[in-house]
């Protein structure tokens, strides 16, 4: 089952990227002429460093939460010792593990961040206006694996059942990445890089 999830995630991502690449070749050929590695990286770097751009400085809380969220979202599932042990057992591969305490704090951070995002969706009019059901579902899809993970870790009520929820929800999250708005993970380097190239090489301007 885990294997299926990884396969769907990897194959799905690969498929999405390749088909987008082919569509770009067919319809947006100009992207390939204008992309400049230097300016693409210049822009990407400015957008993956916290507070490097004006937009991020304008929203300090959002910036801190968004960075914390993304770091934890990646680090916890990959470096959690329980996960690393599972990888070791099934595929005999292993790597560095997070101390359990750190993993716990980071998981709470993800849940807290999700609550923050939920709060934005509910209370900020400009975000509420853009929000539809799918945005809430995606947020839930990200939060549930972490909530259920902590739940089982602490062996709270019915933790065996919750463990199953944890496994299934984690797999679902992984599998939907390529096919939902979570695909911003795949496309971020391309959209930002393309804009960075247009702004940098053609328009001699910053885009952050």
């Amino acid at each position: 089952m885990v294997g299926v999830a990884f396969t769907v995630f990897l194959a799905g991502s690969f498929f999405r990227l390749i088909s987008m690449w082919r569509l770009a070749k067919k319809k947006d050929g100009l992207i390939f002429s204008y992309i400049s590695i230097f300016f693409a990286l210049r822009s990407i770097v400015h957008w993956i460093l916290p507070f490097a751009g004006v937009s991020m400085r304008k929203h300090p809380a959002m910036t801190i939460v968004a960075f914390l969220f993304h770091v934890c979202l990646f680090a916890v599932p990959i470096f959690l010792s329980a996960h690393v042990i599972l990888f070791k057992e099934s595929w005999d591969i292993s790597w560095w593990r997070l101390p359990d305490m750190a993993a716990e704090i980071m998981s709470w951070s993800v849940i807290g961040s999700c609550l923050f995002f939920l709060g934005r969706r509910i209370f900020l009019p400009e975000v509420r206006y853009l929000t539809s059901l799918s945005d809430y579902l995606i947020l839930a899809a990200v939060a549930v694996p972490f909530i259920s993970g902590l739940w089982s870790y602490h062996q709270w009520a019915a933790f065996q059942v919750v463990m199953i929820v944890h496994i299934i929800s984690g797999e679902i999250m992984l599998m939907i990445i390529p096919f939902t708005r979570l695909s911003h993970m795949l496309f971020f380097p391309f959209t930002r890089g393309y804009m960075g190239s247009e702004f940098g090489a053609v328009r001699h301007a910053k885009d952050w």
Partner: protein
Amino acid sequence: MTKRSVQNISTIPDEGIDKGAQRLTPDQVSRVIRRHLEEEGGARLKVYTETCVHCGLCSDACHFYLSHDHDPKFSPAGKVKQTLDKIIRKKGRVSIDFIKKTAEIAFTECNLCRRCVMYCPFGIDVAYLMLFLRRICHKLGVVPQYIQDTAHSHAATMNQMWVKDDEWIDTLHWQEDEARDEIPDLRIPLEKQGADIFYSVIGPEPKFRAQMIYQAAVIMNAAGMDWTMPATPGWDNSDMCMYTGDEEMVARLKKVHFETAMRLKTKRIVMGECGHAYRSVHDVGNRHLGWKMSPLPVMHAIEFYYELFKDRKLKVNQKYDAPVTLHDPCNVVRGGGLHEMARYVINETCSRFVEMHPNREHNYCCGAGGGVINCGPPYTNKRVVSNRVKADQLADAKARGAKTIIAPCHNCFGGLEDIVKHYGLGMEIKFLGDVIYECMDKE
């Protein structure tokens, strides 16, 4: 300082949109849109619309949103949600009224200023999406009347203002005559083969602001430049078709423009102070003709003035004395990176300079760009009300001493004039060329 907008702006009557819509059937609408999505909807459209995470961070970028008391309908992603998202979801099966509303949003509620690109973490280009919609409207024949008229003029005369071939030449002679009262040996060289510079202007210059040609001639003369202007169509560098979604015409227009430069064997094109024309010649039109960059060097007036001062070709008699502030036009700053050069020229010509905030790439659009001012009188009120932040920004510069606004772009000039008037700011607006002309040593 400035008045708050309380008006609720609903659909504004517009002959172009209304008559165009009357001719449509729902079936036509969905057929045209489906075909358009299939033929021209590529990876950019797909990625932009599918990866927008609805975070709302682009809102703060948009002067429409900021000026309408943070009404989310005017945020960049909010405009996409109301229009394109629905069109894609319904695969074009939208009502004719929906198309009318879409036309109004795409043509008059976005200046294509690309400020939002700098606030969206993913660099989603809402201006591109709005242009995509405008092209749908163009194909459906639902375009605001005034801007469509300029596009018709482009198609029929190769200039934006229905200027006839002999009127163009007459205007140049007239300005040459006038200028000779001041500088007896001044010439406006017509059709000079092999000159260094082809000086090109926008259609409204000979039509409404002919003194700008006069001033440019005086500057060229004093700097001793080897320049010329054509006596044929191709003199106009402007391009409203770029904003109506008529991309075929964009290619025709720029072809004539570049070919005129080639025919005259000039080494470069120097353009007057216009932002959208710069966007068209240096960034957009070349692409439609298959050139990655323009086929010969193209310089906006700011760059040209910068060169003249840097090379000490122009001397200043007495610096402009009233404190000035600079409006950074989107198309030459976010679209061309000329902001430091503009400041250099101001430094050379003006004694006191007050920065506006925000400035440079982050400056607010004038509200006129992207063809919005060209949609004409029906939208004037909406346009100025929708840019209250600009008025606040100007008022702040005024409070810090600025008396004159320098706006090195025709559209910005017009847009700011309306804003200054509507909000009673009492500031004077000048082109960079006006200031240079006033201060320079003309000998």
